[in-house]
């Protein structure tokens, strides 16, 4: 299960930038049943964190109302170059991480 962190290629230091996150995950609600009648156990991304150079930017708790392969978008102001680290954990305890580098330019 992979993920994509989408950032502008080289933003200006001090710019407000869009950060978009796309994660591959089935996001089973627990409400579905298989053809045999047995319930499909709930398995959603419980918690999702994004930090930048160790500083927490986003801490989200997703629930059963989020579609499969969730897409999140938010804005932040960036002053320096560094690494974004995305990490998440689902109900089965499966963890995932993804890193992406962002280089800012001076002007």
């Amino acid at each position, binding site marked *: 299960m992979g993920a994509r962190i989408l950032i502008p290629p080289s933003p200006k230091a001090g710019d407000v930038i869009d950060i978009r996150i*796309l*994660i*591959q995950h089935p996001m089973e609600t627990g409400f579905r049943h298989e053809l045999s009648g047995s319930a499909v156990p709930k398995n959603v991304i419980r918690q999702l964190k994004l930090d930048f150079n160790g500083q927490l930017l986003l801490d989200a708790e997703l629930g059963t109302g989020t579609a*499969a392969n969730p897409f999140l978008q938010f804005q932040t102001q960036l002053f320096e170059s560094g690494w974004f680290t995305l990490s998440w954990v689902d109900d089965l305890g499966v963890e995932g991480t993804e890193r992406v580098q962002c280089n800012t330019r001076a002007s």
Partner: protein
Amino acid sequence: MQHKSVMTSGLDPWRRLSSLIAQCSLLVGVMSLGADAVAQFNAVGPGWLQPHERRSGLAFKSEDLQNQQNDDAINPGFLWVDQGAKLWSESPSPQAPSCQSCHLSAPISMKGVALKYPLWNAREKRLINLDKRINECRVKKQHAQAFPYESDEMLALSSWITLASRGMKLENSIDPSLVPAFERGKAFYEKRIGQNNLSCAHCHTAHFGQRLGGEIISQGQPHAYPAYRLEWQKMGSLQRRLRACLSGVKAAILPFGSEELLELEVYLNFRGQGLRLESPGVRR
């Protein structure tokens, strides 16, 4: 059912006339090229679309969906493409070669490959599509277990390979060895099937652009697959989409990889000639 009664007499007179003209011009074209060079067949029938009519399935979708497909950054199909790129360079076991060991860089070596499938395997006397070809390499060369149909790994590799041909046009020629398959695929497309007693042509040639419940009927073009469908909440192959239609008309659902579905793929690829490959597509 309004569209049913319309179709009992075939197509409307204007469409019939235009297809007759196209039929003649196609035959003239074939004759002028010489009988040896080009296989003799007649593509035009109730399922055929004229070049100016052919449109991508995306043209019938909302602006939101179009944006989602056209922006690689938010196209969820790229999650599978990324996975495919990873699988391409990884060996399934330490002593086995990876895809990359033989085929090198996929964006270069696989360019145009997706357009060649399904093709006729003369030795085994059967059609193979890209999925089957991937598994052939996997079993014979990598000595690994074949990927099941519609598994994430299968879809990931096939969408990664198909991406190399994105933007290329579906071909306007057909290999002579594929002509019998093409004829059977065409017959299948035009044949009434299922409890609803509808052929593919009833919806996707005669009534595209019109509504069926909440949906707008597309032309049934194959060039966006493997595609991400919101209904499936994941990537799926063209065969899965064809099976969904078979279920829709309450016909017997053909198994994955069956000859009938492959023959239909051959017909659809030729019927959509001129459209540009746009996989990974996003559909409802």
